């Protein structure tokens, strides 16, 4: 969240979820991947002779293990297809392409892959195709570039490098990398938008519960205890106390300004009934304690944006502590909601 609204005044952020999965293959899927690296396609043969391609380690009908590996042809026939235009993000193809279930010669089940032709007009069920390989192969489904119409010469010699790969190593592929990347356009809720915009004016907002007046910060538009909408906004003090804390010795990525170890704490603002997360600084680590009174330290005015990052950290006020037995969440206790905890 940059804290800079878009042309419609909305705060939004690119949210990217990425997982660099490394998956172990086991011997059967590993044989399929090893085959791809070596420019061959293999399947697994069930006792009744039926050959599954790609190789499967478990019979999808009976659940029995299938261990016999057999090589099938690199030519086959299209069983069904569609046309992908534009190509999908993350896919190995940069141009519009066919996508088909192709049953290879010697296989009883079809496999999914791309078909590299000019247009949908060049696609047809029943069309014979042959595999086209990448020159550099690592043991991955994308070692196969895709399929092209058989006999056009496009696939010729593309499996070259096979012998070399086999010569250099006869080790089987044991794992593959399959990174997953998903992109989202994250737009905070109306309550969160108001909360973040208020930060630009050095104001901290909470929601007041319509049930009993308890105040929640950050405001989420609901009282989570009762499952009812909470739309009333209240402005909160810039002072509070530490309800709980933790000393961390690992750096936060992207926060080079923050020396380790640092203290993250549950800050209970005066007037709020639950705490929210903040950093505590401006004192010795050993001095941080439950009940310690703190106040917000803001960024310089010229650096303020619509972001909670405006509060750099919370520093001790020097006032007497809130007694430990009164520190922390009050919305979940019997004490009067919204009450400001008086200094001891």
């Amino acid at each position: 969240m940059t804290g800079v609204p878009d042309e419609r005044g909305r705060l939004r952020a690119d949210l990217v979820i990425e997982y660099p999965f490394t998956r172990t293959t086991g011997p059967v899927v590993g044989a399929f991947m090893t085959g791809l690296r070596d420019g061959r396609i293999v399947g697994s043969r069930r006792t009744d002779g039926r050959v599954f391609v790609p190789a499967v380690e478990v019979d999808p009908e009976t659940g029995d293990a299938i261990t016999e590996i057999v090589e099938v042809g690199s030519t086959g026939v299209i069983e069904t297809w569609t046309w992908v235009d534009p190509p999908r993000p993350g896919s190995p193809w940069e141009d519009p392409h066919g996508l088909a279930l192709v049953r290879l010669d010697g296989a009883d089940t079809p496999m999914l892959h791309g078909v590299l032709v000019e247009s949908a007009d060049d696609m047809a069920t029943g069309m014979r195709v042959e595999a086209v390989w990448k020159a550099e192969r690592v043991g991955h489904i994308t070692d196969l570039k895709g399929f092209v119409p058989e006999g056009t010469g496009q696939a010729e010699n593309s499996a070259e490098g096979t012998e070399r790969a086999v010569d250099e190593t006869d080790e089987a592929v044991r794992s593959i990398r399959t990174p997953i990347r998903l992109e989202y356009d994250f737009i905070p809720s109306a309550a969160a938008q108001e909360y973040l915009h208020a930060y630009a004016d050095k104001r901290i907002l909470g929601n007041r519960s319509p049930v009993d007046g308890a105040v929640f910060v950050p405001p989420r538009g609901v009282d989570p205890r009762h499952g009812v909408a909470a739309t009333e906004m209240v402005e909160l003090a810039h002072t509070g106390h530490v309800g709980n804390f933790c000393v961390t010795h690992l750096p936060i990525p992207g926060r080079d300004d923050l020396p380790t170890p640092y203290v993250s704490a549950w800050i209970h603002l005066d007037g709020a009934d639950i705490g929210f997360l903040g950093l505590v600084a401006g004192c010795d680590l050993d001095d941080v304690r439950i009940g310690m009174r703190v106040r917000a330290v803001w960024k310089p005015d010229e650096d303020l944006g619509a972001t909670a990052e405006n509060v750099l950290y919370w520093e001790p006020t020097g006032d007497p502590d809130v007694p430990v037995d009164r520190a922390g969440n009050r919305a979940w206790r019997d004490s009067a909601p919204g009450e400001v905890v008086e200094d001891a």
Partner: protein
Amino acid sequence: MREVAVVSSAVHQVEALTFTTDVQLMVPLINQARDSVGLTQDDIGFTCSGSSDFLAGQGFSFVQTLDAVGAFPPIAESHVEMDGAFALYEAWVKLQIGEVDTALVYSYGKSSPGSRRDVLAVQLDPYAMAPLWPDAHSVAALQARRLLESGGVTLGQLAEIAVRSQRNAVGNPNALRASADVTVDDVMADAVVADPLRAADLAAEADGGCAVVLAAGHRARELCDRPAWIRGIDHRVDAHGLGVRDLTRSPSAALAAARAADRAGFEADAVDVAELHASSTAQVHLLTGELSLGDDVRIDPSGGSLAGDTLMAAGLVRIAEAARQVASGDADRALAHASSGPCLQQNLVCLLEGE
């Protein structure tokens, strides 16, 4: 078997819930479903929800959504990373055990912040399929072409299914695609999105949610005038790989219907209405055959999932819509179908009846 009924429901579907969180979406729906039968969360014996972290882009996102229930003091609760129809099945089992007399089921999906057709690629085999990022429309198209070329259906018949959905959806506030005067020619003139499927062949993507209250025995009769009794419910699954299945069939849908019928004491084709959870017109055609739905069955009176398809909720919405048909007296018997996974891999059939 214990008598269990749908006694109330609430649905909301729109194109995009831009400024609304999952919690803010569900607060009014859950309250509406509970309030309409005079229940508070204290009266609910078990709560079960369905959603997907991949839509929220956030791990354990369903835990936050519990804020919408009012889960304090602590409640008996469970969650499935599946369509809410499967959460309803879990709640039904809980009610069968006899521990509780009431249950709240809800599910929701806000897919608009991401590219839903691409997000769905990650449900495929991670070794040989997902790295090719086959999007959901392409996968639906592979199945549709198999159906068309096997001679089971024509493009014109698929267009008729699209027209039926859009016409039925008129008057449904939760339908995104509705038209009283759309024609087969209009649909056939649409641009091809994923050859051979046109825009009208693909379910209209929605953000939304659904809440349903279940009650057992006399409790259900106390709570509403005409409970929609769940006479039979079952779910079955086919193999995951697209290549190892006959994409023109859905044996799991047929088996789930047969098992549900065994319990119900009437066959799936003996219903007045059927609400189907399909991502394409081709899947509606396929399901109509697997469930043996005859010409006298009104299919998708709400427009079905073709008219508004909220990922993770569309199946539960089908149950809610079928139950409404029974509660209103428009139907005596209704079938609701829900599916999960690529190309109708997993199917749930719920047979409802009024009394």
